[in-house]
């Protein structure tokens, strides 16, 4: 392992640890760990002249457990299975309405602002988890790299402001909150809302999975109609 990789790993772990401490001490959207640690790392990398390419080997090592960590969401899901089964119908309708509204409004707004067709196709997939977003974006004529960026921004936004916005909109039911975050802000939102409660985390993880299935089935025929 070279020095830059080692430095990148130490930096990332330290930034994450610090952001978590700050999040506990000063609770605010700006201290959302995924946002704050990303900003700190980008500033340090830019300041020390390390490019994202130099950082990539460290990224590969550190994201090695992302797959197993997503699989691990099955455990809170299992613990909350009774609630989930009982609320299958509200969950289905909420997820369907929310996903369609996100896709349609994103595509219409890209057209309103005269952005390119490829931007619209990349924006249409922004609510779902990255691997699905990239595949579906490719299917409907989007740019996979741009789609990945939009996914990241949607996730960050959901993690930072989602819980607060839901409270403002008087969505207080923990089940509905988890569903809303998982549907619109995938894993990044889930990572945040799981801190609010195990039920929210479980529902969010399930919604993330369901939204990715729904999107990959519906978008290829819906997108050309918009």
């Amino acid at each position, binding site marked *: 392992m070279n020095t830059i990789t080692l430095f990148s790993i130490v930096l990332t772990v330290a930034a994450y640890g610090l952001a978590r401490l700050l999040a506990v001490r000063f609770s605010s959207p700006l201290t959302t760990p995924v946002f704050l640690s990303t900003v700190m790392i980008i500033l340090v*990398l830019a300041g020390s002249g390390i490019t994202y390419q130099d950082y990539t080997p460290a990224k590969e090592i*550190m994201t090695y457990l*992302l*797959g197993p960590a997503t699989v691990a969401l099955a455990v809170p899901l299992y613990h909350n299975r009774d609630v989930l089964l009982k609320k299958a119908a509200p969950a289905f309708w909420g997820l369907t309405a929310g996903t369609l509204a996100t896709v349609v409004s994103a595509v219409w707004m890209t057209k309103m602002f005269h952005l390119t067709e490829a931007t619209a196709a990349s924006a249409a997939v922004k*609510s779902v988890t990255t691997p699905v977003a990239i595949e579906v974006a490719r299917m409907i004529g989007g740019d996979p790299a741009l789609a990945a960026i939009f996914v990241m921004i949607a996730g960050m936004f959901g993690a930072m402001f989602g819980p607060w916005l839901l409270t403002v909109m008087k969505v207080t039911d923990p089940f509905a909150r988890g569903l809303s975050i998982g549907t619109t802000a995938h894993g990044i939102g889930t990572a945040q809302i799981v801190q609010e409660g195990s039920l929210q985390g479980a529902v969010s993880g399930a919604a993330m999975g369901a939204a990715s299935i729904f999107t990959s089935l519906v978008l290829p025929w819906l997108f050309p109609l918009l």
Partner: protein
Amino acid sequence: MKNSYLFVAQISFLWLIYQFGLFISEFFHLPVPGNVVGMIILFLLLSLNIVKVGWVEKGAQFLNKHLAFFFVPIAVGLMTYTSLLKESGLALAVMLLGSSIIGMALTGGVAQLLSSRHSKKEKGEDASEHHHSI
């Protein structure tokens, strides 16, 4: 010491299920990524009592708690797109954030409305001796 072995064993087991999920997803050309397939597989194994929840609980709790960490190195990739974000940043921001807010409001609102109606209905029907099921 025994605990840390247990911990590593549990995370390795989750890793195995993840690999199996990847394999299933690719083999059947599913529109669902391997990590979500793995999540569904583990949920089924737990529900069917083939895997006891104690076998994975400690490792899963740790990974759930630090799920955000694994997204940080990926999010750092945003640094390569600063010029694009500067160019049409405002339009993109309005579009991305606006549609997210609309989606969040509808998902949460519809789910909350329907589930509160549903539980009211269920309470009402308790009196007439049967449960309403969906």
